[in-house]
């Protein structure tokens, strides 16, 4: 078996449990999760609805406080992490949501720019990176469009540009193709794969979409809060 140093590991999960609700209504949604994802790996997580995939993703993304066990993301232990630490870890992660979640009152350019607000970059570098990223996702003709003038696929591509412009070391994506037709969905994951390879970042992708499983280095399956294929 391989020995992994922390610098090789993007995500390390050990004996992670998670519960929703209080008292008698308390319900366990994640049971004894163990999972290690190496840097640069593309992992797809599948499983039926309600199996806990999104919960696990939101714990890894610092969007929810981890309760029990060990969860380390990019070298940061997240169980017991305070609010400020979680906010700072979020800045190193690129998120792609099922709905594009663009800010409706900002143009495509400004939406991507938002992701750089918390990064220390020069004006010139920011402008170059935003245009480069929007060009990479094929939207160089629509840089100053507002989201409501873009199609669903185009919006999702802006969201990808936003997730990648900060050069995150980890991308967490939840059903990025769910709202897209077959071709747009394919384009989006291909793009994600290509850009991730170029920037050498780790991708964890939750999906029901069998059509995109081929981009993964590894597929893990979750059911009833348990990982069925936990180790590489």
């Amino acid at each position: 078996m391989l020995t992994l140093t922390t610098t090789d590991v993007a995500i390390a999960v050990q004996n992670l449990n998670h519960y929703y609700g209080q008292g008698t209504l308390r319900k366990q949604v994640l049971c004894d999760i163990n999972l290690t994802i190496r840097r640069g790996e593309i992992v797809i997580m599948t499983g039926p609805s309600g199996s806990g995939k999104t919960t696990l993703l939101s714990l890894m993304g610092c969007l929810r406080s981890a309760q029990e066990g060990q969860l380390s993301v990019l070298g940061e232990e997240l169980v017991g992490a305070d609010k400020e630490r979680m906010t700072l870890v979020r800045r190193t992660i690129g998120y792609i949501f099922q709905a594009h979640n663009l800010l409706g009152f900002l143009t495509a350019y400004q939406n991507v720019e938002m992701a750089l607000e918390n990064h220390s970059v020069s004006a010139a570098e920011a402008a170059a990176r935003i245009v480069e990223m929007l060009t990479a996702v094929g939207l160089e003709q629509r840089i100053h469009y507002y989201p409501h003038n873009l199609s669903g696929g185009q919006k999702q591509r802006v969201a990808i540009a936003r997730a990648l412009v900060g050069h995150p070391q980890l991308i967490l994506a939840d059903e990025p193709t769910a709202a897209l037709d077959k071709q747009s969905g394919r384009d989006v994951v291909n793009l994600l794969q290509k850009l991730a390879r170029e920037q050498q970042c780790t991708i964890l992708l939750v999906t029901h979409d069998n059509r995109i499983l081929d981009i993964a280095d590894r597929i893990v399956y979750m059911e009833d809060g348990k990982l069925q294929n936990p180790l590489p």
Partner: protein
Amino acid sequence: MSAMTSPPKRKKPLFLSWLQLRKEPARLMVAIAGISFANLLMFLQMGFRGALFSSAVEFHDSLHGELVMLSRRSRALISLDRFTERRLYQALGAKGVQSVSPIYLNSIQWRNPENKEIWDIYAIGIHPEHDVINLPEVRAHQAKLREPDTALFNASSRREFGAIAQRFAQGETIQTEVDERLIQVRGLFRLSPTFGINAYLITSDVNFLRMAKFRTKGLIDVGVIQLEPGADVQQVLADLRSRLPDDVKVLTKEEYKNAEVAFWNASTPAGYTFDLGVVIAFIVGAVIVYQILYADVSDHLPEYATLKAIGFRDRYLLTVVFQEALILASLGFVPGVAISLGVYQITNLATSLPMAMDVGRIVFVFGLTNAMCTFSALMAVRKLQTVDPADIF
């Protein structure tokens, strides 16, 4: 990069609050209109209040003398009591007093020469040889008051008294009846109407007693005391207070004005009414801004959740909402001031009330507007606490 170049400029942060407001022009306009309206209400109430007080003391201001003697029981121009002029002449004995001058005041019945209606007018009876009213027109024409049945008319009087000023200025002879005597207008002067006095008439003491037959010679309403140049006002005041019996009181002109203002402010509903008006306007404005901000925050909750998810702190979102509030305050304030100036002008034309805008009031209302918007933002951001970044996955 070469070492010669200066360090690269940091990216300018996006002005999120303004971008968000700008995206919905209709909502922005409603907000601006609402804030302008609240500003207008506040300015109007303060304008009325200011006019009330400044008009109320115009007579006091015009008195040419450092000290004023009144009956112990006098409270304001519309709440007077008489005292014997002997008290005033007693004051002449005090060191530092140069001269004294008695003034009679009373409402008398003025017959509008045009439609013969009778209106009460506030008559001021002065000694025509004394320089006691510090208004240039009065000084110029007061010698004419030596003739019997003559008067100076207030050009700022309301039109119920007839178009006296216009007709007089055109050279017409104005005669009318006061208490069955035919009176001739010999000149004009300007004193704004107040909330208690519609118009003034200045005449000589002798003519005054003819017009107001019920008044007794020697029982006066106000005594004006002029001091010698360089006299110590406080010392003369103390001297007079100690030497005079307590049926009269002696005030400096400033105290006399303050007492008039205090009377209107505290002893009539007027001061309270306008203060309440300002509070109501503040609340109306705050409710409007709150509605706008609350709707804005609610509409953007998913977007704010996204921002939290990608690493923005709560503080950033709070700043956005407060910035929006202050932008709205500023944008609404500019038309608010402009409209208020217009309405001041119209009110002045319609009522002759001295509606004057001053810098202090502008600054004060701007402060109130910002407070109003900040308060609304404080209410609206409570909604932000419901934002959970986990909701968006």
